[in-house]
Structure formats: C-alpha cells, structure tokens
C-alpha cells in the first residue's frame, strides 16, 4: 500500500534522508521511530506531497505522490505534527469543509465520528476558542471521516488526554482490521509496541532496523522491551558515528 523507494532528501547540502526504502502492506499498522532530527517528519512530509524528495519516490495505493498527487491524496488521511485549523470556522463548519474537499457530505455516519471524539458539544464553537486538546481531536476526527485507505500520523498522541488516547488507539486498531494501512511516527515506544505490526527505526536519515517488535529485539540482542531495543540500536549508531569521527580526527 505504501512503497518508499530509495528516498533521499537534502536541505542546502545537508543530507536529511539517505537512501530510505520501506514497504507497508494493506491492513498493516506501521510505527516509524527514531530520535529527534532522525528524518521522520521529513519522510512523512514527502509521503504526503508537502516536500519534494531530492531523489527516489513514494507510491501510495499505486499512485506516485509526485506525478499522481491528487489520486494519492484522496486515499490519505493525514494528521500533521503541528496541525492547522481555520480559527474563524466552527468545528462543524471545518468538518463540513474538509468533507466537501473530498467531495463528500457531512452525513449521519460521518457525524458519528465527531460524536465518538466527543466533539458534538463543540460543533458550534470557533476552533480558535477551543483548547489545544479539542483542536487535536478535531484534526484526528476529520482525518478519519472520509474513510481513508492510508492513515498517516505524525506524533498523534501529543497533548491527548488518556481517554482520547485510548479512543484513538481503538479507532486506529478498528480501521486496520477493516483493511486500512496506518503509518505512524511516534516517540511513545509503549504505544508503538502495543499497536504496531511492524516497526522501522531511522537515525540520521538512514533506516537502521525494520521488522516486528520480536524481530527487532532479536536483531539487537535485547531481552527487554522495545525501549531497550530502541536504545541499543540508536546507541550503536551513535557509537559507530563517534568511532568514525575519532578515526577522521586522527
């Protein structure tokens, strides 16, 4: 469902993504992990067409995001790390607008999604008057309302209360069971471990490991949870970099 082929991205000579390749199947929950500045958000921004890769390509549901962006975007539900909402629209108006963009109506079934996220009583509030948490719920709800085949989430659990976090986890799990593909970047390792079928870890723009939580733990020689695996894999990378730096200095 998602195919990332030899993706490279440079910003003014700085390599942010280096030959990244990944494949995510239909109905798979895929977690994308990495330390800060590893290239997670850049990868997601390229996948959603917000950034252009220096080389390589991304194919979503058979559509190249560069050449068939409109077709690809139609099947994506995207939750950015810093979401944008029109402050002068009410929650209901914003939901209506997003549905209209996808050529859909805000019918009873889609209103149900708003209800599940507890947004019913906020429908006539301007989004600028809502709290940060409510705004995050609005973004999550509107990203799921058009029943996307591919759900891409960049740090979706930040600023969610525990109740909503549980709700989102359940919703995503249900969508995956229904055949949707979830691609989620997160720093919350426990959530990745709990939800993901497969996990990829990147550091310094390079893919350092990919597999099921079990496969990753075996590969790293860790006998603990994902936290231990993550630390081992990323520390190994840092140690390699350090020793390379020492060699260069010498």
């Amino acid at each position, binding site marked *: 469902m998602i195919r990332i082929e030899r993706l490279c991205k440079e910003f003014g000579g*700085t390599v942010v993504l280096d030959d990244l390749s990944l494949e995510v199947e239909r109905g798979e929950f895929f977690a994308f992990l990495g330390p800060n500045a590893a290239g997670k958000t850049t990868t997601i921004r390229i996948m959603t067409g917000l*950034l*252009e890769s220096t080389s390589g390509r991304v194919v979503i549901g058979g559509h190249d995001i560069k050449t068939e*962006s409109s077709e690809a975007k139609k099947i994506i539900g995207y939750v950015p790390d810093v979401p944008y909402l*029109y402050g*002068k*629209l009410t929650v209901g108006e914003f939901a209506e607008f997003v549905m*209209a963009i996808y050529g859909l109506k805000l019918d009873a079934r889609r209103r149900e999604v708003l209800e599940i996220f507890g947004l019913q009583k906020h429908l006539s509030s*301007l989004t600028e008057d809502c709290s940060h948490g409510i705004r995050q719920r609005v973004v999550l709800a509107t990203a799921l309302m058009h029943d996307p085949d591919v759900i891409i989430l960049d740090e979706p659990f930040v600023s969610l209360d525990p109740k909503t976090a549980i709700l989102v986890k359940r919703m995503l799990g249900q969508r995956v069971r229904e055949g949707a593909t979830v691609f989620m970047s997160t720093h919350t390792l426990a959530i990745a471990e709990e939800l993901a079928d497969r996990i990829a870890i990147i550091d310094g723009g390079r893919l350092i490991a990919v597999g099921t939580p079990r496969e990753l733990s075996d590969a790293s020689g860790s006998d603990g949870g994902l936290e231990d695996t993550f630390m081992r894999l990323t520390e190994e990378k840092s140690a390699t970099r350090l020793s390379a730096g020492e060699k260069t200095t010498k």
Partner: protein
Amino acid sequence: MVIAMSDLSVLFKLKTRVLKNALLSVKRESSLKVLVVVLFASVYIAGSFALFFEGFSFVRSFTVVGDILLDKLLELCLFAFFVMIFISSILSSYGVLYRGKETDFLMAMPVSELSHFTILFCQSFILSCWALVFLGVPLFLAYGLVGSRHLSFYIFLIIGLLGMAVTASSLGAAVSVAWARRGRRIRAGWIASAALSAVVVGWIMIERFSFGSPAGRTSLALVNKLLAHMRFADCHFLPSYWAYAAATGGSPGGRLFYILLIYSTCFMMLWVLFSLAEGGYCRGLARRGDFIRSRSPGLASRAIDNMVSYFPGPFDRLISKEVKLFLRDPAQWSQYLMFFGLLFVYIANLRNLPYDLDSIFWKRLISFLNFMAMALITGTLTSRFAFPQLSLEGNRFWLLVTSPLSLRKVLLTKFWLSFAVIGVLTQTITVLSSWILRVPFDMAVVNSIAMALVVFALVGLSIGLGAIYPRMGCDDPSVIVSGFGGSLVLIISTAYIIAVAALLVCPFYLSSYFGLLRPGLLLIAGLVSITALSAVVCLVPMAIGLRRLERPGRFFVQ
C-alpha cells in the same frame, strides 16, 4: 489549463464563511473598542478627503495651468498606485502563497493545484490592494469634485482601476512564482540590495528634480520643470496611463478602447501567471527549504555580544536577544528600510524648499513645520515598531514568564532600547533637517530638546499600551498595530503632538501679538510644560503596563 471549479467553489465558500465569522466576532468586542476604531477610520477618511480636496483646489486655482496640473496629478497618482500594487504584490504573494500556514494544510488535501493557487492569489490580491481602496476613495472623490467630473468619470475610473490592479498584482505574483519555481527563498541580503537600489534611484530622481538657483524658482520655470519631470507617468505602454485615459478621455469610443486595452493585458497577465503556476506552484512549495544553509554566528553577532557586554546582567542578554531577533527578521527591518527610504526622500527634498531666509516669520514657520513633520514621523515610528514589541514575544513569552527574571526588567529593557534607537535616529534627522533648512541655532536647540521629550513620551506610550493591549497570538507587526491598542496609540500620539506644537508656538504668538514678556522666558515655560506633559504621556501607560505584567496569566488565553 483547467481549474477544478468544484474545488474552487468549496474554497470560495470556505473563505466567505471565514470572513462572515470574522465579522460576526466583532460583536464580542467591547462597544468602546469598536466605536474608537470606527471613529478613527471615519476621521481618517474624512480628513484625507479634506486634505486632498484642499490640495487639488489649490492646484486648480493656478490660472491657465491649473487644469493641466490637476490632470497630471491624476496620472501620477495612478502610476504610483500601479507601482505600489506591483511591489506590494511581490511581497504579499510570496508571503501568502509560500509562507502561509494554510498552504501546508491545503497541499495535503486532494485540492487541484490551480484551485489552491487561485484562492490564495485572490487573498494576496486583496492584501496588496486594500491601500488602494483606503487611500484611493477619498483621493479620487476629491479629484472628481474639484475637477467637476461627470458620473462617467467615476464609472470608467473604477473599471479601469480594477483591471490595472489585477494586472499589477498578477505581474507581482508572477515574479514570486517564477522565483519560487527555482526553489529559492527571498533572502534578507536581496531585500537589503533592493532597498539600497531604490535609495540610489530615489537620490538620482531627487537630483534631477532639483530646481537649482533661487533665480530659477519662478512659478513658470517651476511648473515647466515639474511637468517635464512628470512625463515618465505619461508612457503610453503603462496600464496606469490607460486607466487615466479611460477615465478622462473625450469620446466614448476612445475610452472603451483603453478599457479593452487594460483588460486584454490583464487577461494576458493572468494567463502568464496561471501558466507559471500550473505544475510549478506546488513544486515551488515542495522545494521550500532546499536551499537553507546552516550558518554559524557571524561577525555581526559577535559584535552585538561585545557591545552589550558593557551592560549589567540580565540586561546584556535581553538587549542582545532584541537586537539579534530584529536583525534576523527581514519582515521587521525591511519595513524600517522602507520607512527610512521615504524619510530620506523628505530630507533630500528639503533643499528644494524655497523661502525667504531673512524673514523671522518664515524661519519660525519652517522650523515649526519641520518639527511637526519630525514629531509625526516619530509617532508613526513608535506606534509601528515600539508598540508591537511585547506582542512579538508571542508564543515564546512563557519562557520569560516562567524564568526568575522580573518582567518589569523585560519591559524596561524594551523601553530603553527603543528610546535609544529611535532617539538617535530622530535626533540625527532633526539636526540634519535643521541644518539643511538653515534654522537659527537657538531654535534648532529647542527643536532638539523638544524632540527628545517627544521620543521619551511616545516610546513610553507605545511600550506601555503594548503591555496593556497585547496580541500574543500574532507574529505580524502590521496586524498587531492594526488592533485597538495600536489605534489608541495613534490617536493619543496625534493629540499629544498637536499639544506639544501648540506649546512651542504659543510663546512666539503671545510675544508677537500681545507684546507679553520676552519670548525666551515664554519658551522656557513652554518647554517646562512639554516636559510635564511628556512625563504624564510616558509614565502613566508605562506604570499601568508594568502593573499588568504582574499578572502575566492574562497573556495566555488558551
């Protein structure tokens, strides 16, 4: 080239709804606030209409050449609007199309590229043209009334202006899109180079405009020279000239020809713009940041740190932060550059002001008028640059609030820094203009003292009201100033400047007409009164502002 009309209609509905809700939210504002803003806007429009009316009437009163000059003025105004919209459109379209927060949201949606582009171009068009409406309505109305124009003048002018504005705006946006297609960002250095080039061109124009020796300043020679220098606006290839010809032309056929000329050019420009945007707009967006270079702190940064090291802590760090943020934000200093560019034109033009140097009346009058001009410039400067200082802390304000640093110190640093910078600038300009105008030494000294007091008062007023009426969620200084607090600063500043001018003029008026006391003694009394008034205007808002900062929770709405 196909624009998906369904997408476009959804986006237009969205913008209409946003506008409607924004207008409805005015209801939630306090009545006093709305009243002050409406009153101020009405006074501004009525005042500018009166000013233009008087100006045009004066020009028309010249025998023989009055009507010619009036026509030339209209031609010149239209040319100025055309250039203004073009430049403004380059900046606003780049900001709206490539740097707006909305672009990422729309780009991630299945909205067609051209629909996305069209809606944002319309937004940028409105942004770059609002000044035309605000300034143009009183100007063209005054012109039409003075020139006893027929109704058809207004109809053709409006139609012509609309076409001219779209042409200029498309041209400006095309420059932005062509630039962004290459994936380049508009850099601070380029803005500085463009501003410097504008100053050089301005200087050359002023040199050409010089009227030479006093002997050559007779009315007829002056008018001839003026007309000769206005000829550039007469170029028959300019849309501004076509709008002028359509509005003032004789036969209906001739007027229609120019309207068709404007609109054919307008549609051609739109076609060029949309051709550039098709396949290139989203590509430009997706390539943002490709050319970002990481830079280590340079010489300027080290120089700032060295300079501020003489101040006691934490003022050194606060001053360093303020200066570095200012220098690294082209949105702020580019407006400073434009402002001082205009000031430069004013100063350079003073050399051409012909007046009788031997008459004490003229000497005083010119000196006071210059003081008034300087004070009004200072008023604009402080409301535009000092008032938004606290609001510009924006989302970063929590850092200062939660630190052990006293917020009083933060506000006082902003006050003294603004006072020092604006004070040095205005004193330089005051001394320079006094010297160019050959103002007597004693009057120049009085002007300088009064100007220092004016800066003290206006900076205190702006910084103080900035803390009383902050707009923390906004990063754009021009939007921060456009609110209630900014309008209040402008109103109080204007009233204060009028009061100061009256206190300076009164001693001479009283001594000349009533023979009371010596003017020197009265002047000292006037300066003492100005000091007292300035102290009130500065200290009262500063005290209230400092007290408000003791409850910083009110700055965080969400």
